[in-house]
């Protein structure tokens, strides 16, 4: 049985990855799952300088989901290079450096710094608010997204994944724009904009007023977006959004994802990555599927 997937140059031992922001830099979960069994770890989003993040509450539970506004708390790119890369390199898992900035210059500086480091891929988060555009996310305008990707593409030969926001008019436009600009792969979806108001205090629950929705509630949104992007671009897709078990993972793969990412589910079940991998193998056995590639985008060929 072959579970290896080639994401346009980034080869994963298996299609199970973990989503940025949900797994830290692997240290905490390394005590409960064997990181060697995870295809790739997209680390907590990094910025040039350390960030302390947003005022609490940073999280609110909603029906079948959670809203979060953590605010990119992270130790900064230098600490990532000095402390976290050496730790993660002790494992077979591929390292995906999720990078964030508030203007194109920030991203460029991060790419230049990390280009010399032992990481396997960049995941460029274009859901960040672009300060030069009054806080509109880079990823809401295909031209701005393309400009950002073009700028960083020039600075590295390393693998680049662009993480797409679902909070857009037409995600396939953004996908096509970043493909043309040089992205090797795309990952979707990032969180869906949302908020929750307390009817007793009459105030929003999150300290930052609104946040991003993740968890099972968003899966149908993510599945459609993966399905549509698979038709629109030819670069591989990492699909994510509410994956809780192997059935969800298979659904994403059949919709068009070459790999999947598990995020929110880790919180309730620290062993979920292992269970999903075992479940995928079980499904392939039961259905006589020898190579995971047979499943990728299968729904489009039936």
């Amino acid at each position: 049985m072959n579970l290896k997937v080639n994401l346009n140059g980034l080869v994963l031992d298996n299609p199970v990855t973990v989503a940025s922001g949900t797994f830290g830099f692997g240290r905490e979960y390394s005590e409960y799952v064997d990181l060697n069994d995870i295809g790739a770890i997209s680390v907590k989003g990094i910025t040039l300088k350390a960030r302390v993040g947003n005022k609490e509450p940073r999280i609110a539970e909603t029906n079948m989901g959670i809203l979060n506004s953590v605010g990119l708390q992270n130790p900064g790119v230098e600490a990532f290079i000095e402390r976290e890369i050496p730790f993660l390199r002790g494992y077979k898992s591929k390292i995906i450096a999720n990078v964030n900035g508030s203007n194109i210059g920030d991203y460029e500086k991060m790419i230049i710094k990390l280009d010399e480091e032992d990481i396997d891929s960049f995941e460029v988060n274009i859901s960040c608010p672009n300060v030069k555009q009054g806080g509109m996310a880079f990823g809401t305008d295909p031209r701005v997204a393309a400009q950002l990707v073009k700028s960083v593409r020039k600075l590295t030969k390393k693998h680049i994944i662009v993480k797409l926001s679902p909070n857009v008019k037409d995600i396939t436009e953004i996908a096509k724009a970043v493909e043309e600009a040089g992205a090797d792969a795309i990952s979707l979806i990032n969180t869906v904009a949302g908020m929750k108001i307390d009817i007793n205090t009459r105030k929003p629950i999150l300290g930052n007023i609104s946040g991003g929705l993740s968890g099972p509630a968003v899966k149908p949104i993510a599945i459609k977006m993966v399905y549509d992007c698979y038709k629109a671009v030819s670069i591989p897709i990492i699909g994510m959004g509410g994956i809780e078990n192997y059935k969800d993972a298979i659904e994403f793969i059949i919709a068009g994802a070459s790999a999947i990412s598990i995020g929110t589910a880790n919180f309730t079940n620290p062993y979920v990555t292992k269970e999903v991998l075992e479940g995928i193998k079980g499904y392939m056995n039961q259905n006589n599927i020898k190579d995971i590639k047979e499943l990728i985008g299968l729904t489009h060929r039936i």
Partner: protein
Amino acid sequence: MNVKILKVIKNIKHNDEIFELIVENHNQSMKAGQFYGLKLNDKSKILRRPISINKYDEKQISFLIRNTKEGISELADLKENDEINAMGPLGNGFDTSELKSNSTVILYGGGIGIAPLLQLAKEIKSKFEAINIITLLGYRENPYQIKEFKEVSSSVDVFLELEIKEKIEIANVSYTYGEYPSNYYGKLLKEKNIDYVYSCGPDALLENAVEILKNTSDINTKIYVSLEERMACGIGACLCCTKVINENQGICVCKDGPVFNGVEVY
């Protein structure tokens, strides 16, 4: 830490709001101040509920829980032999390593915040039989677990916001009505050479306890507070439960805490 399916041994209703869920323990060791993440059967509520360890031994763990009706009410309905998915023990627990046999300790709890202090009292008492434990318990209206605290404290002072109709008189327990414990707490700090304060309860109680300590001169008292915050992963990976305490620093309540040195937080 691990995730286990534990059988319910007993579920005791203390009053309309408070229940004590006792589950089996498979010889897991843990510390006072640590907590468990309890999974609800209601699939629409995806986060585990973080609940302090109230007391434990090799055979069972007790959780003292306030029924806030949001999801938690499911736990109030659990019966003997039902099962619960429990992740833990999580968090750092109370640090009692510096205690000596002649230390004087205040346990200062408000409402459901008294829960972790019972296990703490038991641990301190079993380490130092003769240690002086002064327990202050504040409730709104209906007290609970006073007898249990009396068994492991040198003295127990109960403060009730509202007068209760049926007064339960327990020997050597004082009851004060219509007053917060803070005045008496401040008096103790000034007069009694307190070495350590361990506190758990509403944020306002903790902040006030630290403020009173800071404003009391010529004392060497250390205060440890147990915080709570909405949390997700419970192990320090997601950073959802981080409290920003100044422009450069956040404290992760589930991993660096929930117990912190009070003067570093407030």
